[in-house]
Every structure is written in structure tokens, then in C-alpha cells.
């Protein structure tokens, strides 16, 4: 079986620190993959390697069986991998609609000469881009006036907007970096619904998340990183009972505790 997204022994060093150490990750089409691990375990670095923000020091990243290791980030986005960022990186002085329209950039073609002479095709494309942007905003359930400047948006809606912007690139795989961070319970439910909807739309999801109920609730498979290494992989249930995982999160412990609770206990 062919994986939609695969890393083969991918490695990244920062000076003496090995942030990601020979990680093999295989993600199948249509799944939701959770990526967890303690702080500094290399989750975000791994996403940066996949999306081309960092160049790996070793190993390969493959998308649909093709190697994408040394491609520029905008080429990777064009091929169909979109992402969000751990700390929002929205275009703050642009409007909500414009932010999402940037996502459509790699699916549209108008160049400088079209900007100057505005042929009918380019006008139609602009309309189409606007329409698509509104669709994406609808999809994540962000109903604000499209002319609203993003700088005035509260945190929870910024998270949704980032997802809408990523969806506007019409991806096959979307990488979400801690989408539920800093959200209240009702906002978290909203994010979970959106992620489910993304899966239903046929898009593969890789999600980094610290919130255990969220990630365990929606992931088909969970991969656990610690100190840059993959230490476990399996269904949420298997992971919750995996002694290595519990040790990574809590440190070695003499007392026997209800292990699945232990993971969740850390969360609260």
C-alpha cells in the first residue's frame, strides 16, 4: 500500500542538538494522525521538515510516492500539503477574506500583465478566488464581515482563520500545529468538528496537539515523539496504555498508577 505522506529516517540537527532523529512516519490517505510528545520532542520541527521550512540533515520526505525533500515550501504547498502554525502567522493588516485569498494563490494564474489590462479571464478568476475564500470561511464556520481586518480578531477565530487559509490551497494533506491551544471548551469542540469535517472532505490530517482528550478523540493513529525519536505508534487506546509513553510524559515512577488516567492527569 502506498502512503500519501512518508518520512524516511528524516533527521534535523540544531548545533549539537538532534531535534528530529531518524524518524519514519507513514500516513495513509484519509486518516487523522495525531502527533504527540512532551515539549521539545521535535513535533513542530518534523512539521517544518515536511512543509519545507527546514531542510533535513538526513533522510527523505515523500508525498504520494514522490520525493519532496529539497523543494521550496511554495512548491510543496502547490503539490498539496498545507499547514498552520503553532503561533498564528496570519497577515494581520489584511482583511479576513484577503488572508484566505492568499491561500488560493497557488491555484490561480493571473500575472502582472493581467493586473494591468484586466482581461475577462482574470476578472473571473478574481471572483472565483473571492468565492472560494468565502467557501473556506463558511467551512470552518467563521462568520464575520469579509472586510474585517484580522488584527482585530480574537484568538479562537484566528485559529479557525488559519485553518481556512490552509484549506484554500486545496490541499491533500493538512498539517495542524496545536490548533486547540489556548481555546475554551466550546471553541475546542468547534475545532474538533472542523477537523472531522476536513477528514470527511477527503483531506488527510496530521495534527500536533497537547490536549489529550482532543487528540485521542479524533486521531485514527497516534505517533509519539520523545527527544526527537519516535517511541511509539498505534491507536489512541494502545498509546494510552503504552509504558514508554507514560514514562516519557511522567518520568519513571515506582508507584503503579492507573496508566491511562496518568496521561490525562498531566493535562489537567
Amino acid at each position, binding site marked *: 500500500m502506498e502512503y500519501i505522506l512518508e518520512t524516511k529516517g528524516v533527521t534535523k540537527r540544531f548545533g549539537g542538538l538532534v531535534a528530529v532523529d531518524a524518524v519514519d512516519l507513514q500516513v495513509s490517505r484519509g486518516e487523522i494522525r495525531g502527533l504527540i510528545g512532551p515539549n521539545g520532542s521535535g513535533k513542530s520541527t518534523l512539521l517544518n521538515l515536511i512543509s519545507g521550512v527546514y531542510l533535513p540533515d538526513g533522510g527523505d520526505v515523500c508525498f504520494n510516492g514522490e520525493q519532496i525533500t529539497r523543494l521550496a515550501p511554495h512548491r510543496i504547498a502547490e503539490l498539496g500539503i498545507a499547514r498552520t502554525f503553532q503561533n498564528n502567522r496570519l497577515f494581520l*493588516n489584511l482583511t479576513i477574506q484577503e488572508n484566505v485569498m492568499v491561500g488560493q494563490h497557488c491555484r490561480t494564474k493571473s500575472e502582472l500583465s493581467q493586473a494591468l489590462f484586466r482581461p475577462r479571464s482574470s476578472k473571473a478568476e478574481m471572483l472565483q478566488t473571492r468565492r472560494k475564500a468565502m467557501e473556506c470561511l463558511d467551512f470552518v464556520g467563521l462568520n*464575520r464581515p469579509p472586510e474585517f481586518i484580522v488584527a482585530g480578531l480574537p484568538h479562537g477565530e484566528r485559529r479557525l482563520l488559519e485553518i481556512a*487559509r490552509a484549506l484554500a490551497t486545496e490541499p491533500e494533506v493538512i498539517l495542524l500545529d496545536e490548533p486547540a491551544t489556548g481555546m475554551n471548551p466550546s471553541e475546542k469542540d468547534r475545532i474538533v468538528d472542523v477537523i472531522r469535517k476536513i477528514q470527511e472532505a477527503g483531506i488527510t490530517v496530521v495534527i500536533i496537539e497537547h490536549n489529550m482528550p482532543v487528540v485521542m478523540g479524533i486521531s485514527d493513529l497516534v505517533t509519539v515523539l520523545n527527544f526527537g525519536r519516535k517511541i511509539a505508534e498505534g491507536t489512541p487506546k494502545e498509546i494510552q496504555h503504552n509504558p514508554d509513553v507514560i514514562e516519557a510524559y511522567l518520568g519513571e515512577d515506582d508507584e503503579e498508577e492507573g496508566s491511562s488516567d496518568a496521561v490525562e492527569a498531566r493535562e489537567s
Partner: protein
Amino acid sequence: MQRTSFRKSIFYLVLIAIAVLIPQIVESRYYMSVLNLASIYLILAAGLNIYLGYTGMMGFTQVAFWGIGSYASALAMINLKMPFWTALPFAALFTGLIGFLLAIPSMRRLKRFYLSVTTIGFVEITRLILENWESLTKGADGLPGIPRPVLWGIKFNTPHKFYYISLFFVIILTAFSYLLKNSRVGLAMQAIREDELAAEVMGVNTFRYKVLAFTLSAVYGGVAGSLYAHFVGYISPNVYVFQEAVTVLCMVLIGGAGYVGGPVIGALLLTIVPEWLRFMHEYKALVYGVAVVLMAVYMPKGILGATEQIRTRIRQRVFGEKNAPVYPGQ
């Protein structure tokens, strides 16, 4: 929406009509010269606005492009016997090419301050070349007797007549700035200004659009240079000094970087107001400096940014706090 855009077009048409009528009203040759210079500065500033205001990069090259455009146009007319109407496009394209060649290595390797420092270096190098390549540029003596433009037998040899040429290019290039800003390419440039990494990851080829923005600003500089050469009739290397680069930068920042109208307001203010301040000649630099500091503190987004903010606040009062529509300025 439809109505606001209609009202806007009326507003712009009135502005253009006033601009066209000015030479009929203003008799003084002196003031017409000032207006011509303001137009030239406006084009320089509009070029910088694409690079600085839209794409968010800091640079001082505009003055070097101005010089290159001036010399290219003047020499094309004197040595190659080109008419003005081919010399100007030639100068614009030539300057654009230089800008493109400078942009490729700079945009590949440099970010932020390093890029700014490179552009300062480029300004100095250009001036030194103009000064020392005596066989071509006649060095520090400058090039005198640059021919005036002629069209349909009309010689554009007075500030009143030349004004129409300046105005023509101001309108064309400002309209182009507007069309660019509202296009797919302009949106990509603004995304780069806001967050370069995010833009790249969303599929924008940031390198390509940075090179494009730089090249376009060079083309604007080339047009301004050509106009300057044929308006003044004499050019020398000591016109294109670093201080002029700072002036152009201030025009963009004071008018409002990123707004199509920003360079228009900035250039008009910074060429006309100093003329009014002539009576307090010795204090000119002081007034200027204080104005820039006050602007930086109280209106960091320039005059247009400030008016937009005020408009937004009024809207929020009227429509209620939360869902107040916020309109981006043009």
C-alpha cells in the same frame, strides 16, 4: 459596494480634472516647476511604495535608479539620437534591467538590515560610476543641453507645458499601482510584507515576487529619472545623493506606506510645504526633523493610515463595537 466605488471614481475624476486645470490657473513659472518636481518625486515615491509599502522591504535604491534613468534617457537622446518618446521607455526598461540584476543575488541571500545596507552601497556605487566614467557621463561636470520632448510639433520647453507630460505619467503609474495592489500579484506582495514565511508556506513564490517588486520600483525610478533629465535639461552626479533617498523614503512614510495615495500625498506635501517655509530658511531642517519625529510617534502608518483609523473608529461607534466593518484603505 457599487455605490461607494461609483462615488470613488467621481472623486478621482474630479482630482484629475483639477490637476489638468492647474496650469491654466497658476501663472508663476516657478510654482509650475515645483509641481513638475513634485510629480517626479511622486513617481519615485510610488515606485518605492511597491517595494516598501506593498512588499515590506526596506531600501534606498530609488535615488540610484533615478540617476540611472536620467543618464540612460539623456544619453540615448544625445548619443543615439532617439526621440524622447523612445528614450523614456528605453530608460525605464534599462533601469528595470539593472534593478532586476541587482535583485537576483540580493533577494536570494539578504534579509532586512543587510538588504538595506546593500541598497545604500548601491546608491554610492552608482554615484561614483556616474562621476568617474568620464568618457560617457562627462563626470562631475554633468551633462548639459539635454533636449526637450517634442510631440506633434509642440516643444515641451516650459514648466507649464512639461507639466502635462509629468501629469500623464503620474496618472498612468498611480493607476498601475492601484491595479497592481488589487490583483493577485499585489495580494501576494502584501502577504510577503505581513509574514514572509507564512506567505511562502501558503504557496507564494516569495523570491519571485520580491524580485518583481524591486524591478518595478526600478522601472518607476527610470521613468522619474528620464522626466527629470528632460525637464531640467542638465544633470550631474551630485543630484543623486543619499539624502534624496531619505527624502523619498519620508514621502512614502509620511503619506502612508502601502496606500496607493500615500506617495501622492507625501510627495506633494514634502515638495510644496518646504517652499512655503522658505522665509524661515535656517529652521527648515529643524521643522522637517520635528515633523518626522511627530509622525513616527503619532501616525506610524502615515497620514492615510491615520485617517483610516479615525474612519474605523467612527464606524465602530455607529455600527457597534464588535462587528464593525473595517474597510482597507486604497
